[in-house]
């Protein structure tokens, strides 16, 4: 380590660059917060600038207690937040619950059609919901899944990525454990529950973090599959409000307060579980 001056100047510049970048990333959030602290009329009269106003309390209270939502004929905020939470939890838990056993099956068993099953699952990597949107909607409608939590989550649940991640994890479990289990006469199911799942705990948690964010942030599918306000999610509500604001209704303050409410839970998850988040992201590789 040398303490030469140019070295110190360089370190300083590196920190400066990172601080600037962090500030730039936070800029949209800052402006959203500022906008949420004004009254609707302030936007038209041009009062809203770069610093917060005095309507913070009022905006968030009326946003959360539903007064604003009622005036704009939107679903109540509480139920939208709850729907988002339910959707995110069902998608995250559902994906994990169906891909753990399937990954175990393709990794630990030798059976006819193993390759076929593997490829059927793999092919879903190539079918994002956006690509097959119209026929998927038709299937959901035929099965009577419109306006239900099943319709909201099932089409998003099958996931090759989760299966691949778990397969990768299982491949690192030493074969000696399997042999020992066999000698002890443990059934494959016993081995799965008592050895393989506990060994995969961290990866399950990491994947949960990623899937929760993925589920919470869904927009297009919920927009199509729910027509009843009682199934509306918070991200959908943000979209509706933004439409109203763009058309000249003075509701930017509510729009931004709702946007902040919509982004806080997943951002909180990332911040609180940074280590798991990074692990989940880098290991699932999407």
């Amino acid at each position, binding site marked *: 380590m040398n303490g030469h001056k140019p070295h110190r100047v360089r*370190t300083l510049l590196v920190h400066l660059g990172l601080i600037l*970048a962090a500030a730039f*990333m936070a800029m*949209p959030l800052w*402006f959203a917060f500022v906008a949420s602290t004004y009254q609707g009329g302030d*936007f038209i009269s041009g009062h809203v*600038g*770069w610093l917060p106003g005095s309507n913070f309390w009022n905006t968030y209270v009326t946003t959360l207690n539903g007064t604003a939502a009622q005036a704009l004929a939107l679903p109540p905020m509480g139920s939208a937040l709850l729907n988002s939470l339910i959707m995110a939890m069902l998608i995250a838990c559902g994906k994990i619950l*169906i891909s753990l056993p*399937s990954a175990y*099956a*393709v990794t*630990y*068993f*030798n*059976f006819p059609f*193993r*390759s076929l*099953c593997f490829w*059927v*699952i793999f092919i879903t*990597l190539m*079918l994002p919901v*956006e*690509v*097959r*949107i*119209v*026929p998927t*909607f*038709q*299937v*959901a409608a035929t099965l009577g899944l419109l306006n239900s939590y099943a319709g909201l989550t*099932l*089409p998003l649940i*099958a996931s090759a990525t989760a299966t691949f991640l778990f397969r990768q994890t299982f*491949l690192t479990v030493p*074969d000696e454990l*399997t042999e020992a289990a*066999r000698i002890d006469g443990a059934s*494959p199911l016993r081995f799965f529950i008592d050895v393989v799942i506990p060994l995969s705990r961290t990866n399950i948690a990491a994947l949960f973090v990623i899937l929760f*964010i993925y589920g*919470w*942030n*869904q927009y*297009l599918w919920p927009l199509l599959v729910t027509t009843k306000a009682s199934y509306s999610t918070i*991200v959908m509500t*943000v*979209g509706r409000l*933004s439409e109203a604001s763009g058309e000249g209704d003075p509701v930017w303050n509510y729009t*931004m307060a709702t*946007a902040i409410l*919509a982004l806080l839970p*997943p*951002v909180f998850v*990332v*911040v609180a579980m940074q280590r798991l988040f*990074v692990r989940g*992201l880098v290991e699932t*590789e999407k």
Partner: protein
Amino acid sequence: MQAKRVTFQRTALPLALLAPQLAVTGIFFLWPAYQAMRQSLYQEDAFGLKVVFSGLTNFYDLAVDPTYLASLLTTLVFSLSVAAVSLSFGLLLAVLADGVGRGSKFYQLFLVWPYAVAPAVSGVLWVYMFDPSIGPITKLLRVVGIDWNHQIHSGQALALIVMASCAKQIAYNFLFFLAGLQSIPKSLLEAAALDAAGPIRRFFTIQFPLLTPTSFFLLVVNMVYAFFETFGVIDATTYGGPGQSTNILVYRVFNDGFKNQRIGASAAESVVLLAIVAVFTFIQFRYVERKVEY
């Protein structure tokens, strides 16, 4: 396809374990994909009374539709811009964060959170900043003499959706590049430093070449994101306009299928998208499998 050396010899159990995933995949993935392909071969007759087999007419119509070709071009320009911007910023920030040593964890937090913001929400945040009449950035631009109105100027509309789409991918790329940089043996860099190679030279001769596989993988991921996951950004900002200038392919599939009720055309567009994802997946799969070998 790799499996365990020690495996269980059963048939019923693994199939039962696979059943839930296979069921969901079959009902909500394979069946709709098959339907998309089938519907792409049919058209409504002139009176809209019944659907008739029309062969590849839907595809032919797309191929000669100037607005479709424009959408395709827009999507390419958009995706390449998103990839270029988010890869270069992601890499730059990773190099900077790698340079501060132990402090990198601290900065990491302030650079990765945008990953958690939904594309639709991100679109709303950006469209406010650039609102033609009340946006704070618009006002700033006016001071320096730029007249910003993405509702009229198509170039500005495209720039807006690129910006609104990038933050999430910058966070993503940053994490992968940082992980890549930190896995490069320090001895390699120290040896180069002893040879009096400056930091910039070290970056281009050692770090950047070693990051090539990561960059390539990220390029594909970013393209897939820009192609398919940016629906929310468009629907919160430009709605595909002005005119058709930001009407990217996923937005078009949705519009033709649900708003314009052109089921055949929308299905043909789905099949084209399917082919595009297949290409991306093929490229990515080759990368992933190669990595698994190690």
